């Protein structure tokens, strides 16, 4: 039928007046039927040279940003730090330990994580094909991609347990992918992190970008979770000593930790006014915690911060006018409107080393790491010579120091303390609260996941 158009064009060329009227005003077939999109580009153009690759790599930070905020909800609200205070079902369900498989937060974290995996895998497949890419840059880009893949799967496996391990951009294969046992996913995470090691800059522009310190820090956290105490201590020490990393220092005032790009920040998510947290759907923390107060601190953490927090109690505030009905009147105020979100900072590294050392019975070293954090917060130093008591003290310290940074639930689970602690908090605590549900839409749309829901859902 294109012949008809050809004929028609010939016809209009022979009759200049009609031709001018029809094609002059509208231009002809191609321009009418093949307009160019102004706001998007296609796969073949998005990764065509080094310059374009920067944009795709930077795009990964967007997924990372979205993931970090919801990871905080998961880590603090699934345990005894935060609870719901609004009408949104998804938060009421988390706050009452009664999540359903269609919970919006469960699919948001899952979807954000796998959205990130698509770009990671797209880069891993596409970057080596670029003609003009220098070896070092290729390695840096690949290290960035694989770090984020590790970060995503690590968060995912801790939240959902066994995970579909997506390692390609093949849409068909990824639509029918079964879950891989958590242990294998974790080995994969380790491989990615070890690949990324020593390929990223030691001292990037700011801690909003990946660095070798961030890789080591995530390795330290990884080995802590894996209870490989030696390696956890080793990587923590390398960061504290500045071995092939930037020079991180504990802030002397805890309040300064909450500001952007503090001296102890190893990795943080950068927000700016452009992110408009009030209207974006990606869990603007300030909006949830302060403006709308959908989520407020639990009485348990308020008590901890009041009695054992020292300067860290500045993360929350009380307003008597708000204490209506079931509302305790407290607000998490640590996230200002456009504040960055801390992902890994030096205080956590000290606490990782304290715990790793205590587990290896290096009690003095462990205690000294712990007391560095306590000193900074202005609470009295401890003097303990019992491994178990030291470990308990570290658990409590992590709770207050890292409150509202998404650690509590994961900490309780990895130390198998979740049942003991949470049963005292709520009668709703059951085996199902150890993991978030695989989103119902995944079970429904992926035949390989049919019937493979987490226990209790």
């Amino acid at each position, binding site marked *: 039928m294109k012949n008809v158009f050809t004929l028609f064009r010939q016809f209009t060329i022979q009759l200049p007046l009609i031709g001018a009227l*029809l094609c002059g005003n509208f231009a002809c077939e191609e321009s009418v039927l093949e*307009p160019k999109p102004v706001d998007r580009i*296609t796969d073949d153009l*998005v990764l065509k040279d080094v310059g374009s690759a*920067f944009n795709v790599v930077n795009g990964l930070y967007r997924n990372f940003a979205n993931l970090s905020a919801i990871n905080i909800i998961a880590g603090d609200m699934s345990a005894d730090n935060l609870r719901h205070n609004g009408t949104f*079902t998804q938060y009421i369900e988390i706050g009452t330990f009664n999540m359903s498989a269609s919970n919006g937060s469960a699919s948001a974290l899952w979807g954000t994580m796998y959205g990130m995996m*698509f770009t990671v895998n797209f880069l891993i497949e596409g970057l080596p094909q670029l003609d003009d890419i220098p070896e070092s840059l290729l390695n840096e880009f690949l290290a960035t991609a694989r770090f984020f893949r590790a970060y995503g799967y690590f968060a995912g496996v801790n939240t959902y347990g066994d995970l579909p391990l997506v390692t390609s951009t093949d849409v068909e294969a990824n639509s029918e*992918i079964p879950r891989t046992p958590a242990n294998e996913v974790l080995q994969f995470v380790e491989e990615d992190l070890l690949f990324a090691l020593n390929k990223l800059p030691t001292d990037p522009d700011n801690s909003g970008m990946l660095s070798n310190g961030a890789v080591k820090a995530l390795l330290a956290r990884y080995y802590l979770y894996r209870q490989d105490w030696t390696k956890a201590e080793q990587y923590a020490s390398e960061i504290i000593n500045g071995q092939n990393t930037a020079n991180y220092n504990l802030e002397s005032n805890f309040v300064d930790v909450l500001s952007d790009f503090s001296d102890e920040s190893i990795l943080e998510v950068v927000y700016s006014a452009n992110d408009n947290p009030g209207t974006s759907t990606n869990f603007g923390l300030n909006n949830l915690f*302060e403006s709308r107060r959908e989520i407020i601190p639990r009485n348990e953490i308020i008590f901890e911060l009041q009695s054992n927090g020292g300067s860290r109690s500045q993360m929350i505030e009380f307003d008597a006018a708000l204490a209506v009905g079931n509302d305790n009147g407290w607000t998490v105020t640590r996230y200002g409107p456009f504040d960055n979100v801390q992902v890994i900072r030096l205080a956590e590294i000290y606490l990782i080393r304290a715990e790793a050392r205590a587990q290896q019975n290096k009690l003095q070293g462990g205690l000294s790491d712990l007391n560095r954090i306590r000193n900074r917060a202005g609470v009295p130093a401890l003097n303990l010579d019992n491994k178990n008591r030291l470990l308990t003290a570290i658990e409590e310290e992590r709770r207050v120091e890292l409150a509202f940074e998404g650690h509590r639930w994961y900490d309780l689970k990895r130390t198998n303390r979740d049942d003991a602690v949470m049963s005292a908090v709520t009668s709703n605590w059951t085996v199902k609260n150890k993991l978030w549900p695989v989103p119902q839409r995944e079970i429904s*749309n992926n035949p390989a996941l049919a019937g493979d829901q987490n226990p209790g859902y």
Partner: protein
Amino acid sequence: MKHLLPLVFVFAFLSTLHAQQRAVTGRVTSAEDGTPLIGVTVLIKGKSVGAITDLDGKYQINLAPQDEALIFSFVGYLSQEIPVNNRPVINVALEEDIKTLTEVVITGYQTKEKKNITGSIVSVATEKFAEMPLMGVDQALQGQASGVQVVQSSGTPGGGIMVRIRGNSSISGSNRPLFILDGIPIEDGALSSRSFGGQQDNALATLNPNDIQSIEVLKDASAKAMYGSRAANGVVVITTKRGSTDKTKINFRMQAGMIEPVDKLDLLNSTELLDLFQEAVVNQNPENNPEIAGVKGVTDLVNTDWIDAVSRTAYLQEYQLSAQGGSNMTKFYVSGSYRDEEGVIHNNQFTRFTGTATLDHNASEKLRFGLNLSAARTLNKRIKGDNFLDGVYSGALQSLPWFSPYDEGGGLIAPGDVGYAGFPNFNPLAQAIEPRFDTHTTKLVAGIFAEYEPLSNLVFKTKFSIDDNQVQEDQFEPSTTAIGGFLESVGGQGYGIYSTSEFATLMNTTTAAYNYSINKDHQLSFLAGFEMLQRTSRSSNVQGILFPSDDFTYLTSAGLVFSGSSFKVNSGLVSFFSEVNYRLKDKYLFTLNARYDGSSRFGRDKRYGFFPAFSLGWRVSEEPFLQNNRIIEELKLRASFGYTGNERIGNFQFLEAWASSTAYNNLPTVVPVNLANTELQWESTAELNVGFDLSLYQGRLSVTTDVYHMETSKLLFGVTLPLTTGFGSIQGNIGKVTNRGIELGINARVIETPLTWDLNLNVSVNRNKVKEMATDEPIFSGYQTSTNSTHIVTPGQALGTFWGLKFLGVDPATGDAIYDDFNNDGQITEEDGQIIGNAQPDFAGGLTSTFNFKGLDLTVFFQYSYGNQIINFTNSNLLNSGQSIETNQVRKALDRWQKPGDITDVPRYELDNTFNNRFSSRFVEDASYLRLKTLTLGYTLPKGFVDRYKLSNARIYVSASNLFTLSDYSGVDPEVNTFDGSTASQGMDFFTLPPVKMLLVGINIGL
């Protein structure tokens, strides 16, 4: 004497002559109003001799003895043959010709005589809606045409209206029909890009319905096929008034009236609500302190009726002045109008200026040209609503009665003041009054055409048209509002937005029409055309915060302009179309038509589509065996089959794509947004239609019936993907939906004289069914619930099916809700979701009854819908069993379970208990209704009276709309939808402002 003889002879002759000739005189009047008819032809039967009535309608005629009867005929009136029977005076009252089958119908590219039409087309003439207080032309179709469903989404002036022709055929593409105004497709949905929580604007509200001559709804494949790829949802062809060859008529019309909410939701007062909340708190844990802290003292003093606080009696006024006339050479119509309609919510107002002109000129016998021009400017002062936490009506329904809109000094309570409700209720009155949400729309529809007729049966026509819509949104929320003041992360110190958008369609249509008659028995006509269309949309917006004070309300004063964008997108169509009509002996009618469309919305491989249709008509009444039948005036059987398409899926869906996202750490980013599907193509609808048009007793009773079966396949569909792919969905062409239905339209003149009573009834029955989908997995839409979502799309069910738990009642022992354990696993989980209702009516339509008596007339218009259901989602907040204690509750909450043994259908109240408030059939209600839509009483002043003042006509009327509605629905009104225009998520009432009732007076004066 010899001179006398001839004289005598002459006298004798004359007297003989006198004896044989009779003079008959009389007066011809209109049967309708008794006014004299001037220029009526009075013919002697069997002769070509006659007379014409004079200015008083009088005539005189001489008859020969053998003359038996006179025939009176006049354009637009039924001819009458009256036997003389030696009477000297014969007065006749002629009746207007209401035979519909001789009307002409505009089918878009052509004008045809209705008797020759073989497709299913329903016409709504201007008289049907001229006196209704309509905002837009889409409302004119409500209840007037079988097969057309019109639902007004809310009571907001200038708001969204859902129009469906023969049901819903698409799941994710648009189901709105194609609206054609004077040949060009015009914007029909929302123009505004800003969200108002479901309260959309409506492009059709920018046109003045009183500039419209007629609306034709093209329903079957034969009628629609000329619009090919865009026609699957039906086509609405709108024709602007044009001039006439008569002397210039000047017409003035005005309407003025008042508007009130139809009804008000019955909410609890402070004392009742506080008791209920305390019960909920104690039920959660007996050790809880039942004191609702910080409130008790206030409660004794304050009991605000928030609905009254935000609403008002509103006023409507409309004026129009028009002139219509011309000569044999030139015809014109010009008109200007002004309309100002307030909303019943404070600060809500829609103002419109329109100007319209049409011109037709015959330059020579062979060359004609003309134009149509409609321009409008509207100002829509909007308010947020529905699913917006800071909406006004939604806020008023939810707000706790112990808060007050005003402080002791009479000022509006603002964020930071003592007594400000804060999140989530704010101060709804301030939310209405304080912000500026002005949407300015300028619309221009223009067309110029030339027609050249080189031979008497060959016509070339070309027309250039434009539909241009400019929208400017000027918004500011000061620090006294939720966004501008309370939510610091969002606005803090004021929040301003300015956005502009333009939607322009440019089009050229060129046609050639040729008529050919071999002889009287074989008549052929051909039409072929070429059309090129380009739509451009451009938009931009900037947003700013941190204003120095509320005295600065424009972005030029914003401390931080944090967001801005500009955007442009083009789409286009290139098409050929053709139609062949063949009439055999004026009895057997054949039509073959087709369109070949190329669309920019599909990839290179699937860009072109072919849409043919074929139809047959048989005018049975022309057959010899019915020629002498006195009952049947006209009977035509029709049948058609053909294909049409739907391309409305948005642009570039076939491309894989990456888009820019917000910069990270001041670095630009791109992220994937769409998966490619180069095979993406049109939805295709095959449609079979069989019907008949029957006219009996000289047109006093006419019946039109159609039966149809439509099957839409290759549905444009966002196929859900597991998120493990990195994407939520991919556009595909999968699935089938069918619509089957019966339509019946009856027009009857029940009583003729002296009182005339006309009755018009239409009934539409449509059965919609999803036949196939991409996978067996259903698609969920609507609002999220514990069983996934409120709506489901699944094979075997209609679109608009509700999904949730089945509520079986309240356990008298515990007060907990009992739900159906659908999968029998002993627990209530998301797996127990099931179908719990549907928004589709069993049947729907309208009934209009018009009485005329000596210039007095009464029109009663009922509209009805039966068998449809609605989700009262409002009650998931306002009858929430204590899930939260942040919102007021409806009176039914007082029926809650309180102690063992209570028999009720309202579960007990317990704070934080989500189980009893899970979405279930408890919130699904019957939404059948019968509504007295309009009642109009008018008086047309007598001819003699208006003549004295040199007027051609004068008329005064009062009209009321939405006077009463019979319905079992416990919400305010069943005719609302939060998801304005949605297909899958119909029948949802979530804090939606109900329709309003209006009472108005109107005057028409013609010069």
